[in-house]
């Protein structure tokens, strides 16, 4: 996902990286790496990256993943409201802007295709990285294949309905 799409951009370009945003220096990159480490630890410790948890979820046999995603959304939404109410800035003092997402057919068709893959691999893109780190190195192949899938979409993005 990264940065959200801006209004008025070509509809088939998907979410385009924010052009105004400056690149990050080594220290900032280290900060994002550390945030990622924390995120990866949560992934493993709550077993969210488990293929079994995803099977439980899609078979409606456990509340666990619904609880995880649901409570994450509630906390995320409350946090964003707090940021808006108190006009909280970034640590550099910049205004926090959340760009709107535009509706496209891709959210239906692409979303559905991702869902098929999610149930097979037991992973969305984030957990793929954590699974590899946890020692299932064969998932590297899944990751490379996911990059290939992304590339094929990008190569032919103007051919798909959107």
């Amino acid at each position, binding site marked *: 996902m990264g940065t959200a799409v801006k209004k008025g951009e070509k509809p088939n370009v998907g979410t385009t990286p924010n052009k105004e*945003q400056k690149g990050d220096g080594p220290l900032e990159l280290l900060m994002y790496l*550390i945030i990622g480490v924390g995120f990866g630890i949560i992934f493993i410790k709550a077993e969210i990256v488990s293929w079994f948890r995803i099977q439980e979820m899609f078979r409606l046999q456990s509340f666990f993943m619904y609880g995880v995603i649901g409570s994450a959304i509630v906390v995320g939404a409350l946090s964003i409201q707090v940021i808006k109410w108190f006009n909280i800035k970034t640590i550099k003092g910049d205004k926090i802007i959340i760009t709107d997402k535009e509706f496209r057919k891709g959210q239906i068709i692409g979303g559905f295709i991702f869902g098929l893959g999610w149930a097979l691999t037991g992973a969305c893109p984030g957990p793929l990285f954590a699974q590899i780190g946890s020692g299932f190195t064969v998932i590297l192949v899944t990751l490379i294949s996911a990059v290939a*899938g992304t590339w094929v979409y*990008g190569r032919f993005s103007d051919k798909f309905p959107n």
Partner: protein
Amino acid sequence: MEQFIEWIKQPWPWWIAGPMIGLVVPTLLIAGGKAFGISSSLRHVCAMCVPANIPFFTYDWKKELWNIAFVIGVAIGGFIGHNLLANPEMIEVAESTQRDLAALGITDYRSIMPHEIFTWENLFTAKGLLFFVIGGFLVGFGTRYAGGCTSGHAIMGISSLQWPSVVATIFFMAGGFLMTHVFLGPLMKLVGF
């Protein structure tokens, strides 16, 4: 301290993990105004390695390196979580799921992933083709076509009240339900389970 280590090694409940994941949203926003999202990293890898003059991949990926640093961190976190804080017990899975999976030939609960599927030995077999190659391709293609994944749409998108993200999430789930309940059984038979 020992008790704390003991506690931290237990699998964390959803009401700890979910809110902590939710807090990644404001953390990234306050850290640098970044919108939480992971599947973009796959696009940045394309832009870095094989842009091939495709408009979709010709942008200044150096500005998006934070996303790559983040996912490298996720892999390191996976390593730490698994090696230093590992749960010594077998993974607990709902009994009804265990019954369903046993019917498909999956009975190994030693790790977070079933060893019947996720091993290098399976790479050049029909099993590997289905679960690694096709599965990975669907994830990469689908998330980019949808403009995001569980993090970008379901968590960041719905948290910021974007209705297209609600639509995307509904179709993530629809695809997953269809695969699990309709295609998975026959496909697994086909590849030799």
